[in-house]
């Protein structure tokens, strides 16, 4: 494929610059039983890369995302985003989409998407321009005046992605956004995500439990251990920037997926309490 394209995107200017950096990050949850959920771990998210995180259930993947988004502070260690420390406060420039449906049922699709822009105080014309663009981009035009309840799960997730995109985030965090969707819809939504990743030039971090999804979408895949979650390996896929779900037919795709599974198998058995891993 055309390798030149891979470095001509908006991210090219800052290619190889570190977008988000985690150093010695640990997260404990206190309570009746204190739980060591995560770390210590280090991670450098490169500007403009597509990074996925896979790991056994309960390994702290979502906790990792909350930490990077500034939704909760690390117990130990430091996190920086664009050079500035993140500590329990959501920095400007980060968008997130979650597994659960987070569309606002009391607003139309259009108002859902405009929500963040209105709070940020953009003027009406600018809001209309941006919302129109994103509605077209996400293929939601005929649903603009519908309410989320009238849409399918996949469509509602599109609304959530659109609501995030319209704010033009530089780092997009996706926490199993397609986990509740069927396999076919997931593959198609994967294409959708690749397209928006290419066109926005944003850095994307995807949390997923689907190895094929991680293998298909990512530049790099971080494999996490069972709790407390750490990176046991980071695999570089070597895909060209121009790619789509057809990559599942590529023999290299099978190799990457198999590699991910061989790394994860033991950890997943630990996570479900099986012996002889």
């Amino acid at each position: 494929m055309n390798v030149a394209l891979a470095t001509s995107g908006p991210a090219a200017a800052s290619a190889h610059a570190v977008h988000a950096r985690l150093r010695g990050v640990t997260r404990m949850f206190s309570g009746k039983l204190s739980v060591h959920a995560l770390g210590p771990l280090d991670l450098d998210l490169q500007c403009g890369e597509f990074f996925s995180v896979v790991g056994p259930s309960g390994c702290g993947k979502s906790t990792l995302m909350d930490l990077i988004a500034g939704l909760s502070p690390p117990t130990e260690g430091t996190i920086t985003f664009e050079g500035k420390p993140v500590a329990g406060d959501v920095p400007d420039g980060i968008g997130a989409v979650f597994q659960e449906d987070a569309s606002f049922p009391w607003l139309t699709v259009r108002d859902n998407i405009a929500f963040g822009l209105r709070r940020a105080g953009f003027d009406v014309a600018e809001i209309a321009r941006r919302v129109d663009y994103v509605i077209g981009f996400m293929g939601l035009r005929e649903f603009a005046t519908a309410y989320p309840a009238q849409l399918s799960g996949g469509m509602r997730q599109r609304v959530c992605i659109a609501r995030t995109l319209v704010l033009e985030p530089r780092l997009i965090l996706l926490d199993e956004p397609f986990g509740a969707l069927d396999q076919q819809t997931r593959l198609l939504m994967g294409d959708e995500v690749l397209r928006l990743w290419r066109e926005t030039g944003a850095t994307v971090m995807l949390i997923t439990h689907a190895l094929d999804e991680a293998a298909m979408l990512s530049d790099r895949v971080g494999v996490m251990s069972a709790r407390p979650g750490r990176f046991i390996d980071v695999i570089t896929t070597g895909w060209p920037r121009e790619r789509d779900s057809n990559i599942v037919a590529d023999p290299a795709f099978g190799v990457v997926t198999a590699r991910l599974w061989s790394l994860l198998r033991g950890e997943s058995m630990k996570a479900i309490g099986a012996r002889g891993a």
Partner: protein
Amino acid sequence: MSRQAAIGWTRVAVIVGFLAALEILCRMKVINPLTLIPPSEMAMALWGLFVSGKIWDDIAQTFSTVALAFVFSVTVGFALGALIHALPRVRRAVDPLLASYYSIPFFVFYPLLIALFGLNTVPLIVIGFVFATAAMVISTLNGLDRVPRVMTKTARILRLSPAQAVMQVTLPSAAPYLFTGLKLALAYSFIGVIAGEFILSGGGLGFSIAYAYNEFDNQTMYALMMFVLVIATVMNGALHVWEQRLLKRRTRA
């Protein structure tokens, strides 16, 4: 005819059929006219009360009392609900109390309230308020419990301030439950106030019903009872229609 309209007409038919049956039974003297007067006579008597102007003072007093009890119970109930929701320990302590709240016969305190505040509308407002507040507290707790965590997370990701998050995400998200609270609070305020007036007061619809009863004035008594029934039904119906309109867009087609 749509299914919705058919249901509506069936409802009307049930009410009309009941009234017609009552009318016939009364006219045929199957029901003693000294016990129950025919619905048509109730309506005529009610019309007479409006024409003579006797009813207006009662309406004004009862409605202003109910309105005050309602407003207080909704604001205090909501504030208390939000506060209890924010304090899990307090929540655990008061949850069983709230659950058994309506097993208390509050009206036994009504004479005490009169002794405390005098024979005016204050004891009525208080009894309506006490009766209605817990319903609002429970509905508020219910609503806040059901706000999905992902909603509050989304509010933070969108960088809303805590106040904005509450006003623009939490409250709209909890709105259907809060609406239930409003409906219950209105009904309970009504019951509290009219029952209080019935027991002891210087005016109001409940008072006039009791007064007519003691005077063997069946015409006035039934006229007023009919009026109270109609008003309660209309108010609840109006809230119901409004609620359905709000909910329609939120429920799957």
